[in-house]
């Protein structure tokens, strides 16, 4: 997109490179569908520091999950394909890594938890075997040792009767328990990075709180950095250090969570925040909503993809897609009108 922003990112990264564990540069991932070519992720750059909690937030089709799957090397090909960019992790570009190298990284140094607790575990394999699998692969533990460690991990994630659970099958557990098992499994080799893709979306509120607290606690204990992918702005506010706001395949705004919420740099972020009714005080009358519909990814509007829904849209927005630019300290946003928009907010 713009070299200017990239060099800035590079500079920021190299200044603090000792603690940056993941750096994604200009990542683009596409899917060939019957409806046409979908640019699910388009020129996305961001980085994650050690022990950091990064949130990627956005609505359906924004590309947040595809970003995560690209990092993990789990894009199903075909129909998907990573068409450009770099994913630097542990001094290596993952996009150049061989299958064997990727297998070593996945589950060893980088783990992932998925949205659907009901379908993400193998239904015909015991919990114990599934949790032991990465231990045997990456740490080379014996069958017996892996089983012992799996039991410890299950107790670490707070499952009652962990040793009995080893021989249970997934269908015997509740959704919350399965997500705990997923955490135990993903964290078993104490990875440097864990990606939680809508990991608590399918859970009830009280269970969601338990699982999130657990995730944060275990990550802190193991010194693991987290990427939380969610559409829930509350979760981001509670747990994230930094936040990337995505819309139609691109990062539109990025900054510290405190900064982005207090002083959004993009009309989309602002609209999103004001669309959520408040829990803390009663409101009546109209909610501020974003008009229009989420665009069809096979047929994006020209210029800024948010343009057609944006209350601040100008002619320029319809012609040129704005680059990410600094709007504050460690806070970037892609909006031609950000100065004007922020003045009016």
């Amino acid at each position, binding site marked *: 997109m713009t070299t200017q922003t990239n060099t800035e990112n590079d500079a920021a990264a190299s200044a603090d490179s000792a603690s940056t564990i993941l750096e994604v540069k200009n990542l683009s991932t596409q899917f060939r569908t019957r409806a046409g070519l979908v640019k699910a992720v388009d020129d996305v750059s961001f980085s994650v520091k050690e022990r950091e909690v990064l949130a990627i937030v956005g609505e359906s089709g924004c590309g947040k*999950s*595809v970003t995560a799957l690209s990092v993990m090397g789990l894009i199903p090909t075909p129909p*998907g394909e990573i068409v450009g960019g770099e994913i630097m992790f542990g001094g290596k570009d993952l996009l150049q890594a061989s299958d064997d190298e990727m297998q070593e990284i996945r589950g060893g140094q980088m783990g992932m938890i998925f*949205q659907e607790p009901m379908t993400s575990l193998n239904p015909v394999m015991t919990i114990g075997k599934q949790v032991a699998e990465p231990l045997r692969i990456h740490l080379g533990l014996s069958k017996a040792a892996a089983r012992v460690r799996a039991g410890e991990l299950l107790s670490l994630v707070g499952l009652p009767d962990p040793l009995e659970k080893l021989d249970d099958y997934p269908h015997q557990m509740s959704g919350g328990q399965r997500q705990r098992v997923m955490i135990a499994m993903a964290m078993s080799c104490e990875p440097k990075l864990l990606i939680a893709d809508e990991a608590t979306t399918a859970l009830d509120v009280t269970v969601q709180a338990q699982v999130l607290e657990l995730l944060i606690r275990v990550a802190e204990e193991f010194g693991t950095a987290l990427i939380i992918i969610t559409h829930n702005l509350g979760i981001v506010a509670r747990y994230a250090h930094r936040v990337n706001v995505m819309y139609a395949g691109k990062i539109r705004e990025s900054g510290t969570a405190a900064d982005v919420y207090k002083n959004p740099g993009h009309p989309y972020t602002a609209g999103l925040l004001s669309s959520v009714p408040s829990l803390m005080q009663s409101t009546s009358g109209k909610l501020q909503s974003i008009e229009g519909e989420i665009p069809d990814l096979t047929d994006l509007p020209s210029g800024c993809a948010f343009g057609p829904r944006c209350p601040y849209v100008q002619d320029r927005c319809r012609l040129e897609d704005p680059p990410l630019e600094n709007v504050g300290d460690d806070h970037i946003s892609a909006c031609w009108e950000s100065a004007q928009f922020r003045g009016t907010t």
Partner: protein
Amino acid sequence: MVKTSDSVEPSSVDTARIQLPYWLAGLLRHRLSVIGGSFILFVAFLAVFAPLLTGFEPTEVDPPNRFLRPSFEHLLGTDYLGRDQFTRLIYGARISMVVGIFSVVIASFIGVPLGLTAAHFGGWTDSAIMRFIDAKLSIPGLILAMMLLLMLGGGVLTVSIALGINLSSAQARLIRSQALSVKEREYFHAARAMGTSNWRLILLHMMPNSIQPVIVQASLGVGFAILGEASLSFLGLGVTPPTPTWGNMLSLAFQYMRSAPYLLFAPGVAILLLVMSFSFVGDGLRDVLDPRLKGKI
């Protein structure tokens, strides 16, 4: 495709709609369906215009000219009575096509109402219908058909009925399972909550949304019925001689295998190609009507 919150496939359910131009267009893009469909039309043409396409009668015996090898006059040779094989083949096509289509129509008329009734009313009605279908399925199809023919006597219609009854249980099971899933859909609940009558529920909501796999199954079923008729005729139990069918032609060819092996080929290849054509069209329909299975089968 990735199953995530932001699935990038724009609403894959979309293509599930049924509109004539749409599925026809879909089928026409499906190469094998086009080949299959063309062959079916070709056979139908031969069957319909059989009397115009040959100078012989299918049952016309000509003892001096028995066991003639294929020639210009007798494209596929003659059999032990000197009957022209090509003539018998295209007249036989009539039986195959008619039995194939009749059977499936009969199967659908039995199976679809049974399946819908079982699904809609559930409980004892469902159990009774399903156990009955299980019982029927537990009797090997060909044996059942043979028993029915014993009761009903041979002939095009009875063979179609026997094979139709056979195929009906698959239809009933299929539409029942589809209808059961429709019953769980919210549009069905919404219609019930509005006080829509049972008839409207079944005819407007349940049937149109569960009929697709039945259509696919029907086109495959035509193939099964053609095979079934051929097997029965081969055993001398289906359509009886002298009416030519591909099955009884092969039965005769079997008896004279050593003296006239060339008689073995044409009817067999004809059955094979016609059945394959129907299965191509069925696969095409499945791809068009049920995008979930696209490219999987």
